[in-house]
Structures are given as structure tokens and as C-alpha cells.
């Protein structure tokens, strides 16, 4: 059987043309508006309360829509955006170092290895400056200079200092800003907040997204919720690898359920492996912890020149160390983009020069920076990260170099959306990491926070009006056949999971799935490996439905049951990721195919054949998906081989 079928191309019918600088303005002007009196009559469901979902829910409520917000955590403040450390990019050019909207646009398109849409990325760069203004007005305590103005620093893939930050907790501070704006609207009665609720199905009526089926995780009650539009801001799917820097609860269920209902899933194989994470310490490991990319501003990455050099790092003399990033990429040095830094770490470890007990690690050394700037300055910049490192590893990074290794961190793929951030299901909008649109095949550091807030504060609240202008739509309730069917599907699936009553835990399956994915669909992929992975995933999925063991019932808090539903969806996604990776016979960004590399081991793109977005349409479990291609056109940034040398 074929792994997939090729269908008709897909086009972004909302994409404006004309000069790129005025496209966003023109789209806003051409889009229909909803007058304030009519906004009160319309309800929007927002799933997820991270930077994208929280900011969107707050902003839509400020505009006068009625909003219902959902998150699986106990409070909207806990969404995983909170863990983002390093910073947020914005083209303010406060440093007078040559930055501009056009340069941020250029860096992002190039950083994404020429696999993103120019129009979307330009819009992102334009609104980046408004985000900083907005967050400062909310009281986000960004780092400041002595004169009282905002401080910035450098991040990977850029030669300007455009990254705003709040020590190593930028995501936390930005999220709390959005959360507080959201809580204000909750207090005013404009947002109905439903924490500890999980979306388990999308309700589609007459081809339009009209609601969701949710489970109250505390009582187990399943309800159908209706609205005039549904916004998914449910984050990425990095937990398909089991071990990742994502929170334990991060999952693909909301987007996958929408995919099964007709929303195309774009570029699922584009995953970001972050170069600086704390290495795995044993089989018990439940998650991986990131050490912010900002550390590469002052830390130097190295391994011993000789294979199997077991001396303590301080005993290895300077001339026997290989500062390989500085050696291979002299102009960007330790600040090359993430995909490049990760693969370089893998290569030196594969060559037998890795460090630490597992030999899967490289040093990130601050000795030079401490000599140059003093311990106090390093403490002020990175104190909390150094403490976190010491708590986890038991080693003091002021004395001993950190050991780091790449880990799954972010997913550039997601539900396909047009320029308005609308999916292939009318009325279903997708924002933040859950969509695919802005980062191409590799996301630059400090750009996730930018995109989440751009979508939630500034893009979606403008574009969704164009859709809602045709509303309010016909009232529906739980008696509608589509709602009854969606609800029954959810109930049946929960009962099926409970009925298996096998002899393996959900986590044991998840861990095994993660190993398959890391081995064959991780930092380096090959045809043979991907084919093997697809077979293994299918077999494991079968086994899951025959042997999984869940204790308890669906009538109350049951954390194993929650996990089981999420892992079941990860199985289906994993297969699609491998098929996408297999079909993309090129290397680009985070997708590195062993068969497609330059003589010096860099990614070899094939623009003639693969300069497109792969948008996948679901048919049925185990049946081949349909591939729809969206051609990418580059009018402003000419694709070249990315060079950071």
C-alpha cells in the first residue's frame, strides 16, 4: 500500500499581494468588520491559555466578543509558554545596530531555511514592535539599563541585539502579563474560564467549526460547547518524543482531533531540537530541561580534541580543546542557529568526543566570561539558570563547565492556516505554536514568544472579524446530530481505553514511542530508518489498544486516562511525521536527511522540487493521507544555501 496519495494543490486564498510592506495594512482594510453591538451577540471558544491563547482571549473580550476559554491545567497562568527563558525579538532598533523590520523579516525567512511564507513573516516583524509596547504597558518587568530604558541581547541567527528579556524568565513574565489581562476580563464577566478542562473533539456543522466537546478533568463530565468560531491555541507536539523540554501535559489532541475532522496538518516533520539542554541521566527521566540559548552569548561550546579523553574538563589544556562552533562557523561562532548547533553537537559525539558519563554531551564553559566580566555579572544575567542546573545535576557551573546535549524543544509544523490564520475548516482558527505558518523549517531563538503574542494580540483579533462579519450563525445545541455524534465518539473512545484492561502502563508505551521517534525521526533521518519507524509505530499502536492498562473509571479525576487519550493521538501523529519526513527528499532546517547533505555535512535543500508546504489531509486511521502542496514564492529574500560561516 502507498504511504500517501498526492491531491490537488492548496492555496492561501487570503494572501495579499502588492508591496510586502503594505500587505498587512491592506488586508486589514479589505477585511470586513463587526460593529461593537453585534460583537456582544457572538461567542468565540479559545482552547489553550498560553501566550497565543491567553492574549487572544483577553483581546477578543476587550473588543466585546463573548469568550469561552479552556485549559487542562488548574489555572490559565500555568500554560507552558511560562517556561520560555531567553527572550522575545522585536525590530525596535534601540541599539542603532542596523536592525529594522526588513532585517528581522530577512533573518526569520533565512533562519527558517526558506520554507516559510514571506507575507506572514513580514507581518510578524511589523507587529513585533507593538508587542513590546503592549507588554511594557501591562507592567512586564523587562530588564533595563541604568538610564531606565530597555536592555536587549543577542540570540542565535542574528547579528543585531534585538532580544528583549526579563532575566531567564521572559516567557513567565510575558505570560503573566497576558494572564492578568485575561483575568481582568474574567473578573468583568466577559470571559468564561474553564480550567481543568480538556478538548477532546471538534464539532463541525455544515462544514463550519461550531464547537468542541470537553471533559471536565475533575468530575469527568463530558459536555458540548458551542460558539460562532473556535480558536485553537493548544501548543506544539514535541511530547510525541516522550522526552522533550515541553511540560508533561503538552499534547497534540486538540489539533489532532481537528485534523481528523478535516483541518490539514502542515509540515509535521519540522521539529526543533534545541542544542542546549541538560543531558539525560537515566531511564527514570521524565522530561528534559532547557538551558536558555542566551547562555551562548557568554558560554563557549567545546569538546576535547582527542577521542575518549576522560580527564576532568579543567585538566584539559586550552590547545587540546576543540571550540568546534567557533572553528567551523567563525562569523556566528557560538550563536549559530539551533538546528546547526544541535547537529554539530551530535556530530562531535558520534565521532567519539562526547563528554560526561553517557558520552552524549558537550561542554558549555563560562570560565572566560567569568574572567572577563566577573562572577557577579554572570550571576546577574544567568543566576537562576545556573541554580537550576546545579539542582538537577548536582554540579556547580561556576566551577565546572555545564554539560549540554540537544533535546526536542519546539515544533514548527502544525495545522495549516491561511494568512488570516484560518484552517481548512471555516471558522476554525489556529494560533501560536499550534499552527505552522511563520518559522519554516527552523525557528530562531526568541521568535516563539514573538509569534504567540503577535497572533494573539494583533493578528487574530483583526482577521477573525472578517469571518464573524457573516455571523451570528444559526443557534445550535446538544441535540444537533453533529454534536451528538461528536460527543458519542468521545464517550466511546474513553470506554474503549478503559475496557482494554491490559498489562502495560500508558507511560511504558509513550516511552517506547519516543525512543522510536528520537532514533529515526530526530536529529538525522534516513529512508531506511523512517520506513522501519513507520512499521514499528504501527505495531506498537496495535499493541497499545490491546495491552494498555488504566486503573479507575471516567467519572472523576483520572490522570492515567487523560494520558492514554493523548498518547493514542501521538501514535497517529508519529506515523504522519515519519511519512512527511520520508517524502521530503531534501534537508532543510530541523529536517536533516542523511541522504541529502553537502560535502561538508550541511543541509542540502532542493528548492526545485521541495519549495512547498506539505499540507496533509486525514482520511482514516491506517489509510494513506492525501498530500496537498502549497508552493512557496520568494519575491524579497532570494533562497541561498544558508551560511553562518
Amino acid at each position: 500500500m502507498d504511504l500517501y496519495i498526492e491531491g490537488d494543490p492548496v492555496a492561501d486564498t487570503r494572501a495579499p499581494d502588492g508591496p510586502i510592506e503594505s500587505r498587512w495594512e491592506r488586508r486589514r482594510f479589505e477585511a470586513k468588520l463587526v460593529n461593537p453591538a453585534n460583537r456582544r451577540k457572538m461567542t468565540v471558544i479559545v482552547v489553550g491559555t498560553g501566550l497565543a491563547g491567553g492574549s487572544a482571549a483577553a483581546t477578543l473580550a476587550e473588543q466585546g466578543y463573548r469568550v469561552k476559554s479552556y485549559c487542562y491545567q488548574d489555572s490559565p497562568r500555568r500554560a507552558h509558554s511560562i517556561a520560555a527563558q531567553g527572550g522575545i525579538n522585536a525590530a525596535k532598533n534601540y541599539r542603532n545596530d542596523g536592525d529594522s523590520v526588513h532585517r528581522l523579516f530577512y533573518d526569520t525567512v533565512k533562519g527558517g531555511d526558506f520554507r516559510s511564507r514571506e507575507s506572514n513573516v513580514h507581518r510578524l516583524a511589523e507587529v513585533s514592535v507593538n508587542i513590546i509596547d503592549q507588554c511594557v504597558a501591562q507592567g512586564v518587568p523587562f530588564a533595563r539599563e541604568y538610564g531606565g530604558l530597555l536592555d536587549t541581547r543577542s540570540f542565535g541567527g542574528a547579528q543585531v541585539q534585538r532580544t528583549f528579556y526579563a532575566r531567564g524568565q521572559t516567557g513567565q513574565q510575558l505570560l503573566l502579563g497576558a494572564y492578568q489581562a485575561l483575568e481582568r476580563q474574567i473578573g468583568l464577566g466577559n470571559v468564561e474560564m474553564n480550567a481543568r478542562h480538556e478538548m477532546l473533539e471538534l464539532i463541525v456543522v455544515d462544514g463550519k467549526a461550531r464547537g468542541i466537546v470537553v471533559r471536565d478533568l475533575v468530575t469527568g463530565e463530558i459536555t458540548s460547547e458551542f460558539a460562532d468560531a473556535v480558536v485553537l491555541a493548544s501548543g506544539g507536539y514535541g511530547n510525541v518524543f516522550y522526552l522533550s523540554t515541553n511540560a508533561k501535559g503538552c499534547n497534540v489532541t486538540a489539533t489532532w482531533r481537528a485534523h481528523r475532522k478535516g483541518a490539514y496538518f502542515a509540515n509535521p516533520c519540522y521539529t526543533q531540537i534545541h542544542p542546549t539542554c541538560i543531558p539525560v541521566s537515566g531511564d527514570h527521566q521524565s522530561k528534559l530541561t532547557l538551558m536558555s540559548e542566551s547562555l551562548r552569548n557568554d558560554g563557549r561550546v567545546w569538546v576535547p580534541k582527542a577521542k575518549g579523553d576522560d580527564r576532568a574538563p579543567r585538566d584539559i589544556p586550552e590547545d587540546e580543546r576543540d571550540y568546534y562552533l567557533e572553528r567551523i562557523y567563525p562569523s556566528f561562532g557560538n550563536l549559530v542557529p539551533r538546528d546547526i548547533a544541535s547537529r554539530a553537537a551530535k556530530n562531535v559525539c558520534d565521532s567519539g568526543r562526547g563528554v560526561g558519563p553517557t558520552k552524549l554531551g558537550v561542554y558549555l564553559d563560562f570560565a572566560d566570561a567569568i574572567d572577563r566580566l566577573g562572577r557577579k555579572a554572570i550571576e546577574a544575567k544567568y543566576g537562576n539558570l545556573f541554580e537550576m542546573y546545579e539542582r538537577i545535576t548536582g554540579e556547580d557551573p561556576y566551577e565546572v563547565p555545564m554539560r549540554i546535549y540537544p533535546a526536542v524543544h519546539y515544533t514548527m509544523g502544525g495545522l495549516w492556516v491561511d494568512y488570516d490564520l484560518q484552517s481548512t475548516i471555516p471558522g476554525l482558527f489556529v494560533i501560536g505554536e499550534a499552527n505552522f505558518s511563520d518559522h519554516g523549517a527552523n525557528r530562531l531563538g526568541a521568535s516563539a514568544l514573538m509569534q504567540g503574542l503577535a497572533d494573539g494580540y494583533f493578528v487574530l483579533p483583526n482577521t477573525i472579524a472578517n469571518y464573524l462579519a457573516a455571523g451570528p450563525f444559526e443557534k445550535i445545541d446538544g441535540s444537533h446530530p453533529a454534536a451528538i455524534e461528536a460527543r458519542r465518539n468521545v464517550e466511546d473512545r474513553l470506554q474503549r481505553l478503559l475496557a482494554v484492561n491490559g498489562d502495560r502502563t500508558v507511560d511504558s508505551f509513550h516511552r517506547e514511542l519516543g525512543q522510536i521517534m528520537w532514533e529515526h525521526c530526530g536529529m538525522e533521518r534516513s529512508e531506511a530508518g523512517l520506513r522501519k519507524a513507520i512499521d514499528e509505530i504501527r505495531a506498537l499502536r496495535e499493541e497499545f489498544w490491546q495491552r494498555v492498562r488504566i486503573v479507575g473509571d471516567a467519572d472523576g479525576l483520572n490522570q492515567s486516562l487523560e494520558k492514554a487519550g493523548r498518547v493514542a493521538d501521538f501514535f497517529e501523529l508519529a506515523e504522519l511525521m515519519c511519512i512527511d519526513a520520508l517524502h521530503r527528499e531534501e534537508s532543510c532546517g530541523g529536517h536533516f536527511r542523511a541522504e541529502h547533505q553537502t560535502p561538508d555535512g550541511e543541509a542540502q535543500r532542493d528548492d526545485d522540487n521541495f519549495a512547498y508546504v506539505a499540507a496533509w489531509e486525514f482520511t482514516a486511521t491506517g489509510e494513506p493521507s492525501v498530500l496537498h502542496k502549497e508552493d512557496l514564492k520568494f519575491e524579497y529574500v532570494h533562497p541561498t544555501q544558508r551560511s553562518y560561516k
Partner: protein
Amino acid sequence: MNLTLRIWRQSGPADKGRMVTYQVEDVSPDMSFLEMLDVLNERLILAGEEPVAFDHDCREGICGMCGLMINGNAHGPQRGTTACQLHMRQFKDGDTIDIEPWRARAFPVIKDLVVNRNAFDKIIAAGGYITAPTGSAPEAHSVPVAKANADAAFESAACIGCGACVAACPNGSGMLFTAAKVTQLGLLPQGQPERYTRVIGMLDAHDEAGFGGCTNAGECTAVCPKGIPLSTIGRLNRDYLAATTTKRPDSPTA
């Protein structure tokens, strides 16, 4: 190492609850505390017993979702550390460890070690923000903020809303949590217009949610994983006093 765990089990809000003893073997010192609980839960599931319910998410000490009383200490023995960041090297072979949920009137138990902290959200909804609707913000550099104030605001803003302060307080007070937000926003020029309405709104919501009053026991700051200082409560009290006098500092001058 081998450990004896005594864990609070409570099937739901109506159940009285009890401590149940479990043995766990072969615990690695490199495991986190929650990974040790994962190991126990895997074993319970295979034995057909309900796993221990506990809240957790990011497992890197920032989301604030985890919260356990470990041997009577909120988040356990290591200072400045959430339960998810606590590692088993802090314990020794043969130890007996008591694990209980946060206990406070404002945080009812949902199941086992999981409690309802919705009261914190209500405090924020009652004023823990700066009103700045999207799109209305002035240029970021139009209002400079002295670095010392920005740094102090950050220190208070680091609160993760875990509730350890409440669990540790003999009065079950949520004052440190409330004061952290009042202090952060009160230190910034952007926060001045609502400074006095904010503190009244938040404190009213605090009292209404069933939190106790502050008697300066100082247990809250001792267990706070982010080291929010007790001085924030002094600041809250000053603002509250100013806000409730007839002539408030922000009253329009006649």
C-alpha cells in the same frame, strides 16, 4: 536507595482521607522527587491499584502547578526549590518520607495530593493587573523605569503562584502571594493609576476566598521557591492603609 513513603490518599472531596504506607526500592539519587512518584505509580497501576494523583506540569520549577508537603515542609527540605526540582540526592537510603497535599481552607482537596487553587486566580481577577487594552499602549521607551525599581518589580513578579506560602502559613494566609503582585505593579510607573483600587480589590477577594490574615510568622517567605521577601507584605500594608484613609495619596486635589 530504598524508601518508605507515607502518602495522603483521599478519593474525593467527600472522603475523609488517610495516610497509606508504600515501599519504593532502587531509587536513583539522580531522580527528581516526582520521578520517584512516577515509579511508584507505574507499580501501583500494574498491581491494579489507583495511582497517586498529584499536580505537576513543567517539571522545571516555573509553572507552579506542583505542590507537596514533604515531611511537613512545603516543597520539601531544599530551600528555593519546587517539588519537581527536588532531587532524591537530598534524601538517604532507609528514609521515611511523609507526603501530603497543601492544607488550607481556601485550597480544598480534590483528590489525593491535588488541591483547588482557583482562589488565587480570583485575587488576580479582582485587581492584579494594569488596565492596558491591546492596541492602546504608548511607545515602550516613552516611560523610563529606574533600574532599581525594574529589578525590584521583577523580584516580586517571579512568584509562580504555587501556594506554598499558604500551605506553610499557620493562618492559611495568601498575603505573600497578594503582596508580590501589589508590589510588582506598585513599583512601576504604569501601575500607579490603579495602585490604591488594586490593593483594596485584591485584599477583599483574598478575604472572601477564605484565606486567613497575616500575623508576620514569616513561614511563607521561608518556603517560597522564588524567595519572595516578607517586605512585600509591609508594602501591601502601607498601600492598603493609604488606600483606606479618607485622603488617599491619589485623591484629586481640590
